[in-house]
């Protein structure tokens, strides 16, 4: 069986900056895979390439055997992407926003209603979905956007820092949504985070990124054992030679 995501020797150059420097990793179908590392490690660039937003300078990325450069239109049909600090349309209500997004996936009205109803349940926002999104708190907005990314049951969803900036309760709620949805609908998740403790509890496997390269990869438990560390933060520090 092929992988959900296969990235081979991916290089991305912005002017003089090498954002990715020969990145290689595979994501298995139905797993939650985390790209973790400090700010500027190349996590967002990697997710943007997988999501067809950026073109790799060299190397290849395949999503369910579809090339993200040559088959970009096909890739977009089976993935969803949640950018870091993404916003919703300020003057649409949460409900309207979900409806607008669902309309891209199906023209069948009852299917749209079904998708939106399910998304509404995921958000847990209740009646507040009738309000304009500009009245939402950061946590509420993030819950809406995570629901948007999952509601169409994509084959792969790329989530960039899904809980960044959220308080403990909102972050917990978002993590629970992701875990539950993957289990129930066999969605593959590729997420990025600089919160290594959070990733440890959420991801089946992780890849540690530093300066555009993977410096370690495996299950959180295996990595901790291999590097004799109490948590992934310690693993990272040891791998990059800080400890």
């Amino acid at each position, binding site marked *: 069986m092929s992988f959900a995501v296969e990235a081979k020797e991916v290089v991305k150059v912005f002017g003089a900056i090498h954002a990715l420097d020969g990145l290689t990793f595979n994501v298995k179908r139905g797993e939650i895979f985390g790209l973790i590392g400090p700010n500027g490690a190349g996590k967002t660039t990697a997710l*943007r390439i997988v999501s067809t937003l*950026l073109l790799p300078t060299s190397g290849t990325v395949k999503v369910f055997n579809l090339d993200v450069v040559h088959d970009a239109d096909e890739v977009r049909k089976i993935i969803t992407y949640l950018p870091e600090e993404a916003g919703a349309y300020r003057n649409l209500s949460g409900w309207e926003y979900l409806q607008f997004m669902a309309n891209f996936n199906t023209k069948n009205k009852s299917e749209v209603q079904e998708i939106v109803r399910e998304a509404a349940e995921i958000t847990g926002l209740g009646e507040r979905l009738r309000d304009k999104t500009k009245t939402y708190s950061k946590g509420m907005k993030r819950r809406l956007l995570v629901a948007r990314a999952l509601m169409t049951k994509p084959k792969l969803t790329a989530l960039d820092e899904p809980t960044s900036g959220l308080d403990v309760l909102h972050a917990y709620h978002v993590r629970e949504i992701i875990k539950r949805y993957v289990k129930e609908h066999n969605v593959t998740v590729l997420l990025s985070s600089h919160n290594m403790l959070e990733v440890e509890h959420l991801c089946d496997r992780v890849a540690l990124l530093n300066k555009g390269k993977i410096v370690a990869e495996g299950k959180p438990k295996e990595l901790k054992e291999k590097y004799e560390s109490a948590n992934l933060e310690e693993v990272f520090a040891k791998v990059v030679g800080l400890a």
Partner: protein
Amino acid sequence: MLDLLKGFGNFLLKELKELIRDPKILLAMVIVPLIMFPILGAILNFSMQAAQETATKITVLIINRDGGENSTRFMEYLKASMKVFTVNVSKIEDAVPLLTEYNATEIIEIPETFSQCLAAEENVTIRVYSVFSGAGLFEGAGSSILDGLVEQFNRELAPNLVISAKSAIIKGQIVENVDSRMLGSLMLSQAITMPITIMILLSYSMQIAATSVAMEKEEKTLETLLTLPMDRFAILMGKLSGSIIVAAIGAVAYMAGFNYYMSSFMSTISIGANVDLVSLGLAPSLFGYLLLGLSLFVTLLSALALAVIISAFAEDVRGAQAIVGNIYPLIFIPSLLLMYLDVNALPIALRIFIYAIPFSHPIIAAKAVTMGDNLTAALGVVYVAAFTIIIMYVASRLFATEKILTAKLRFKGLRRRKRVTTEELQ
């Protein structure tokens, strides 16, 4: 009071640093006006001088049916201030084709009884035919100068002895008892309304389009949008159509208000005769209206596509608005210029410049179709359509690639200099 303003100085300093250090704001607020207004002033001054000079150097064809001493004296009087050619035709209609040959704008017909009446100190009426070309504010300048000369001539004899009866020549046809100067006043509202409407419509819609793209970037909704299973060209067309619709609603509201404003003082202008512009052929034909609509549409589309491209280089709404502001001179210059002047009265270099700006064409088309010159309007549509296709292609390429996310305006020189300064400080 001092307590209330505590921290004001510190805060103001921060505000100024933030605003002045933004190169886009510096460019739009300081550099562009410093360059634009002197250029605009020079162009207007030059063009108005040129137009006034042309207007004062009028050429007149005279049909002298009298041949007496007084008519010769009258002609000599006119010759002192303008170019005069005597033509011998039996009917006034035969003199009309000669206007082009002599590059003249007025025909004066002196009646047989001229010398006799003046000798007897009786009133005599000369007939004055002025060409009406819909050229702008200086239309009818020749007719005014003639009035002045007739008045001066009268002063030497007796008041109101020579009376001039005015008629207009519109599109080569004589329209009796219609003063072309009055027609000019009547059409002035049209001459002002059209450029102002286009100016407002284009700048509003460009602002809307630029803001809507920048909002998507600022709110980080663009990234999500670009990963959806939809055609990216559809995103571009959606942006353009949305902006056109909102701008059109704005333009209708604006026009309604402006029309009311214009009619409030236009109603006080006396037309002299009961003039119906449609029957005079001074209203566009159905085809002319279609051409004008098409010209407006393609121009609007090109302006919006340009705004979308430009705003792609901004990171936020403020930046997009500042960058789009740099295009405004290209809208304002032709609008202001063509409000007062006929494009054909401009010097050749300026004429080419005005024709090259796509935003001039609806204004040129509006005047052209009113005068029945559909070819000029059609050629304008073809030119703007070609420009629009190129711009739309660039915009669609921009949306099809990662450039829409990664493009940024870079001020390399400024940055390099700043870095050097920082290094020196260190």
